[in-house]
């Protein structure tokens, strides 16, 4: 029998191709080939003005795009991953962590904190794919749980922005436990009657899709984002099925009823503000 491979792991979708010479500049649109200066790209929130392609955006930039100037107060930035399994594959886990911290300037793959979006107070939990594929280990789980506690305490809605390959294999079974952990946290949020808006960006897959990200009162995605429990490569390898062209993409998810909408990045802030206002209901 074919060994079934269930992927709760890093889909290396956004990784640059291995060191071949024709690697494209990160500011060149992979969809239509348009090229932008840094300031142009930043001014348009990392969206191609020609074709609408959404470039990857890190957690800090995302927060700057969404939060009103000067309102973001980061929480739990001191949390760092440990290496409870003494895990090493081709490289030791602490080395991967150290390099990720050096290259991203982040403590782990999620940044949380309080903020206001168009004057609407909320709690933000934003993931960063460039930190080990946005994988969810103990720190990401704990940060999401603390974001919930903070939202409940201040009686404000939670807004999460996900970008993740899934659970972090290097923390083994503890990473799988972050699924129920974040789910339990979201249930506490619901009991406290705080709203939860889940924004899925590319990619939101495996363990993160199969836990808190799918539990938003309102779930929206960015155009073209891959949102799948199992990514196309593994589905293809395991089942030999012919994949539809839009397999797992936000547009397909909307059609099958898994999303409330697709919101382009340039409209995300006003969309969130409007929705947050509805949840706060004049309070």
């Amino acid at each position, binding site marked *: 029998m074919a060994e079934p491979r269930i992927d709760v792991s890093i889909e290396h979708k956004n990784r640059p191709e291995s060191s071949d010479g024709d690697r494209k500049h990160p500011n060149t649109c992979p969809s239509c080939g348009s090229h932008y200066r840094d300031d142009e790209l930043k001014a348009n929130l990392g969206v191609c003005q020609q074709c609408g392609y959404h470039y990857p955006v890190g957690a800090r930039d995302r927060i700057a795009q969404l939060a009103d100037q000067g309102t973001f107060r980061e929480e739990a930035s001191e949390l760092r991953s440990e290496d409870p399994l003494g895990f090493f594959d081709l490289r030791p886990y602490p080395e991967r962590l150290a390099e990720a911290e050096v290259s991203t300037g982040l403590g782990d793959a999620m940044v949380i904190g309080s903020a206001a979006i168009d004057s609407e107070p909320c709690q933000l939990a934003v993931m960063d794919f460039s930190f080990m594929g946005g994988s969810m280990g103990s720190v990401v789980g704990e940060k999401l749980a603390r974001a919930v506690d903070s939202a409940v305490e201040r009686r404000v809605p939670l807004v999460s922005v996900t970008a993740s390959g899934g659970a972090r*294999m290097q923390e083994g079974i503890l990473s799988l436990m972050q699924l129920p952990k974040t789910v339990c946290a979201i249930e506490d949020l619901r009991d406290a009657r705080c709203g939860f808006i889940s924004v899925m960006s590319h990619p939101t897959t495996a363990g993160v899709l199969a836990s808190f990200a799918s539990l938003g009162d309102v779930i929206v995605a960015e155009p073209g984002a891959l949102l*799948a429990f199992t990514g196309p490569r593994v589905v293809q390898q395991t089942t030999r099925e012919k994949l539809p062209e839009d397999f797992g993409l936000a547009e397909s998810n909307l059609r099958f009823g898994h999303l409330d909408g697709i919101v382009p990045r340039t409209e995300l802030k006003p969309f969130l503000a409007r929705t947050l206002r509805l949840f706060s209901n004049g309070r």
Partner: protein
Amino acid sequence: MAGEDERHLRERLSRLRGLPLLRGARLRGDLDRFRKQLDQIEAQPSEETWRLVEIARHSQRPYTLDYVDRLFEDFVELHGDRARAEDPALITGLGRFNGKTVAIIGQQKGRDLNERQKRNFGMPHPEGYRKGMRLMEIAQRHGFPIVTFLDSPGAYPGVAAEQHGQGGAIARSQALMARLTIPLVACIIGEGNSGGAIAIGLVDRVLMQENAIYSVISPEGCAAILWRDGAEKVKAAVALQPDALHCLNLGVIDDIVPEPAGGAHLNPDEAARMLGESLGDTLDQLSALPGAQLRDQRRDRYRRIGVYSALGAEPALRNGS
């Protein structure tokens, strides 16, 4: 082999020491830890770990319905998610255990080729998890405890499964379990892999048979991604440590259920008796607790799981400054 790994690790170590570290990257004590890892490589009983994986997947190992037959009276299987389909990879039903009605949800593998195909190798579609949720609602309404059996390579990775919302179904099944005010017990009887297993694994007590495995991903899947070579599955299994003792030490499970000598497949009746004994004690303990307390403790339990550290006090970063 060990010598090569050792050289490799030492090389990495020296590189690690040379990295320009930000505030925060923790390296204190790492040297000791790597030394321990080197010792581990040398002493690693990798054949032992792989033997465990093979026993957990043994084709004669008792499956969910084998335990249901032996442990529950008057079992009535319930079918269908009332929306789209019946999923034979996940069975649900009601039965009596020690005279009391319980709800049963479990992944089901098949033994011969036909049965395996019918059961989809124990890999549920979203419809299976929705059927499970239907049973959870029945159990909640009537106050029946729920016993789940985890034995699956994972949730099915197919086109239709994705289109019908595999990720969301797994999330919502867990969310429902976090709301229930009845006793919930999970028995890991074979392989508990990834989201497909945890979908019915958010419970008050987790019982794990001594030769079962519980892991974030199958060794093959882990090898394919981290080693970029599925053939490195033995190394991946050793790194993932999917064994019961490891899970117990991390607080992920509550009890290791012994099996007959050589494994459950050699004496299914005795294996069922041992599992039934542990299940009986566990249900007795849980049934004595008020439902709201069960639910609150269940959430606390999961919210405490995780291993991380905190750096010393440092100023929080702010945007726009």
